[in-house]
């Protein structure tokens, strides 16, 4: 029963996310609305974390596999990608590394600075 209820709550919030996606004219997917709704419900105590925790952790653990069909779908995109694949792949590789390094370094530098500020006080 526990898992049934947990999965039910998660699907309910996914459905509410779909509802918001249909209602609001913003390019925000149902999943992101659902994530925000779930966070709000947890923070206000409408949903207790124990009421969804195990199923949530399970779904998150198997999440990488959920991207396999989308990845295989690249087979169908090859036709349109083929004429420009060289610059596209180069841009993709370079920008991904840049974004990762910039985000990580900036965050880490600010955290380290804050920590030093606290220590000297």
């Amino acid at each position: 029963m526990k898992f049934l209820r947990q999965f039910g709550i998660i699907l309910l919030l996914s459905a509410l996310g779909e509802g918001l996606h249909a209602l609001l004219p913003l390019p925000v997917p149902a999943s992101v609305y659902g994530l925000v709704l779930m966070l709000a419900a947890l923070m206000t105590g409408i949903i207790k974390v124990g009421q969804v925790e195990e199923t949530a952790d399970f779904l998150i653990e198997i999440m990488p596999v959920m991207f396999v069909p989308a990845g295989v779908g690249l087979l169908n995109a090859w036709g349109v990608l083929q004429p420009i694949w060289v610059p596209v792949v180069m841009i993709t590789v370079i920008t991904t590394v840049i974004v990762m390094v910039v985000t990580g370094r900036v965050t880490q530098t600010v955290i380290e600075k804050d920590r030093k500020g606290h220590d000297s006080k």
Partner: protein
Amino acid sequence: MTNFIENSVFLGAVLSLVAYEAGMLLKRKFKLAIFNPLLIAILCVMGVLSLLGVDYDTYNEGGKYISYLLTPATVCLAVPLYRQMNLLKKNIKAVVLGIVSGVLASLVSVLALAWLFGLSHEEYVTLLPKSITTAIGMGVSEELGGIVTITVAVIIITGVLGNMIAEAVCRIARINEPIAKGLALGTSAHAIGTAKAMEMGEVEGAMSSLAIAVAGLLTVVGASVFVQFL
């Protein structure tokens, strides 16, 4: 036999799971980034499909039930985020600055490289939302007049690539703070990067989940400005 392969709704799903498992075995054995379970799984399935002469739509009859779980799984990312709320509040300045600079870095670097490679305006806007989650990225690309199919392909390639190189990049760039690692993954490689962040740890995963939503929304705004630049 051919009939069974074409009609089975479980075969595609089983194939995906087995291929992922095989990828994890290889990864454990060789400890090389190229043996990324997700990449191995995708390539294995592609290989099996072309070997059997089964097309993507037939495979996806089973595969779509795996993709179906993506929305509920993304909703669940709120749970680790909730558990790490105190940490988030304590580091809110670093978190906001990190994601904002990452989104800017993405837009600026796509602009610079698109200009360098002489891409057309249409190709440039197609690539602008490449680092954000598929559903938001598709919307942005469509809105700005990009080629949505290519946007989706590039978003997936970005995610798989980010998932593959994250450990090496963090090591080389000496990013060792869990919050910084998580934000780096979520901002650069959206949900596929977050899957890797979850493997690294709870804090990394929570921060990466946060970055999916925040970076996605910031890119919607940022891309509408950057669309004018090329």
